[in-house]
């Protein structure tokens, strides 16, 4: 826990880290309680107040059915932020597992795994996610799986390169000499040393996951109507964009805000965990 506290205090000492941490905690609270905080029913039509600009009654305006945009964005925070976290988690765990095992085994097995990995990395990640979705079919949860799989090769590469360094340390040789099992060495000796670069990378990836998830929904391959997912809200708002900018502006700003928060937190974490880079 001492290491955690040290990282935290180093984190809040960098401006990006402090702002990023604060914003991310706020967003997380919003995700957990957002739907309950929504002042109105996000699905309720108000036909007398269609395309309303922000006012006391509708703080962020309304859409083409007169639905309250603030309530819709709050309701959609779960399907955007939580699912993006889930996608990142899938990619991180799968990638770290592949990378650590490959780096630990070394030799022929490592070479074959990394060759395949490089070939997968040669496909641009949005294209990769699109290909996976074409097999799985369009839905929110399939989009999450697709992003998770598309993130895996990049994460595996990072985890492997850190493992290669950690493998050379004396305590790993000592554990081998003591006759510890492979699983034990990987979990108890290697994982704690590999985890911090992986966490930094994962934090930066969250921003990317939020943007990709929204992009897939925008393209009609993720969340389906009438979900208040932010990318989908923008896709639907396009039909009415020349009548009122609010239905696209509000979810657009929400996506950018989430991405900025996680980018700041990721940069702050990188500086906190790697003091040389922050100078």
């Amino acid at each position, binding site marked *: 826990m001492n290491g955690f506290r040290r990282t935290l205090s180093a984190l809040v000492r960098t401006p990006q880290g402090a702002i990023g941490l604060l914003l991310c905690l706020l967003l997380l609270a919003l995700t957990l309680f957002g739907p309950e905080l929504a002042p109105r029913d996000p699905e309720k039509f108000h036909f007398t107040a269609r395309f309303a600009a922000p006012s006391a009654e509708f703080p962020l305006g309304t859409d083409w059915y007169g639905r309250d945009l603030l309530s819709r964005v709050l309701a959609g925070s779960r399907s955007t932020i939580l699912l993006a976290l889930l996608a990142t988690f899938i990619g991180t765990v799968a990638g770290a597992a592949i990378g650590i095992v490959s780096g630990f085994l070394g030799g022929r097995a490592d070479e074959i795994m990394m*060759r*395949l990995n*490089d*070939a*997968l990395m*040669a*496909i*641009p*990640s*949005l*294209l990769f996610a*699109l*290909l*996976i*979705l*074409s*097999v799985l*079919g369009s839905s929110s949860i399939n989009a999450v799986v697709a992003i998770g799989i598309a993130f895996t090769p990049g994460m595996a590469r990072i985890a492997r390169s850190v493992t290669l360094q950690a493998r050379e340390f004396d305590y790993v040789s000592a554990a081998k000499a003591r006759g510890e099992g492979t699983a034990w060495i990987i979990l108890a000796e290697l994982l704690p040393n590999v985890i911090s670069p992986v966490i930094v990378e994962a934090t930066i990836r969250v*921003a990317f996951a939020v*943007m*990709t998830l*929204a*992009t897939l929904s*925008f*393209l*009609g*391959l993720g969340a389906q109507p009438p979900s208040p997912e932010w*990318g989908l809200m*923008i896709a639907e*708002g*396009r039909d009415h*964009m*020349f009548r009122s*900018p609010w239905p*696209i*502006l509000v979810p*657009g700003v929400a*996506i*950018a805000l989430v*991405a*900025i928060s996680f*980018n*700041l937190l990721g940069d702050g974490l990188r500086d906190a965990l790697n003091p040389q880079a922050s*100078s």
Partner: protein
Amino acid sequence: MSLGFLLKRLSSLVVTALIVSVIVFGITQLLPANAATMILGEYATEDALATLNARLGLDQPAWVQYWHWFSGVLHGDFGISLRTGQAVGPTILSAFGNSAILALFALLLVSLVSIPLGVLAAAKRGRPADMGVSLLSYLGVSLPEFVLATLLLAWLASPAIGLFPASGYVPFSEDWLRALHHIALPVLTLTIVLTAHVSRMVRSEMVDTLESDFVRAARLRGLSRKRVLYRHALPNSLLPAITVIALDIGYLIGGVIVVEEVFSFPGVGRQLILAIQNRDLPMLQAGALLMAVTYAVANLLADLAYGVLDKRIQFE
């Protein structure tokens, strides 16, 4: 740069292309709907399905089908689109040409804008100019292409302002002025997002260079700030900038897909999305393969440019 290095990189490009083709083909094989079912509809008789399957070669083992497809691709034959019934090759190649126009214009503008911005930010480190560039690039990095594209569209192409057409495409051979007018908004979107990425990287490379020993030595020799910046630091930061731009071609390809969809621009990205929505296998395979190979070739070109420009690098 030695011939051996060139051959090695070229052969690794071929291997990558082969593996990618297997992945693309493999993924489309997993699709639930069979092509014969797609063509004949779900009420087709067993006999009709079997006949068509045999005619399309779909009753053969997967590797035979792969070989048929792949040898066709090598001859420029990408099959017949299940959606339109026309040959995929000419459609996808003309779409590729359109996409390439978007991408090349964006790359050119990004190089012209992001390198000076990054250098400026690094030279004025910690001062308002640096803060401004950093803030803008943070914003750009955090704004997905589809959001920026839609906002630009809603603003600049609205009936009230009407600066640009909202969608469509005019070939350059027909009327280059109108062609430029039509690609302006998509290119602007791509340029803004990519500039944000690249100028951040150029800044951090430049900051590292400015702190290196040889720059300090140049300062100690009494050379002017300007001379040190432009003659010593800048050339050394340009090399990493090339790599950064090349790495961002992956983003650019993703961006092109999205931007084409927003502006209804007839490029590979639009064909790809249409193919996914309609489960048009041959078009999907061709589009995905073309994009993946373009990405691999771009990375190869960046490596070669690096080797030509940096005399110190000795590739084995």
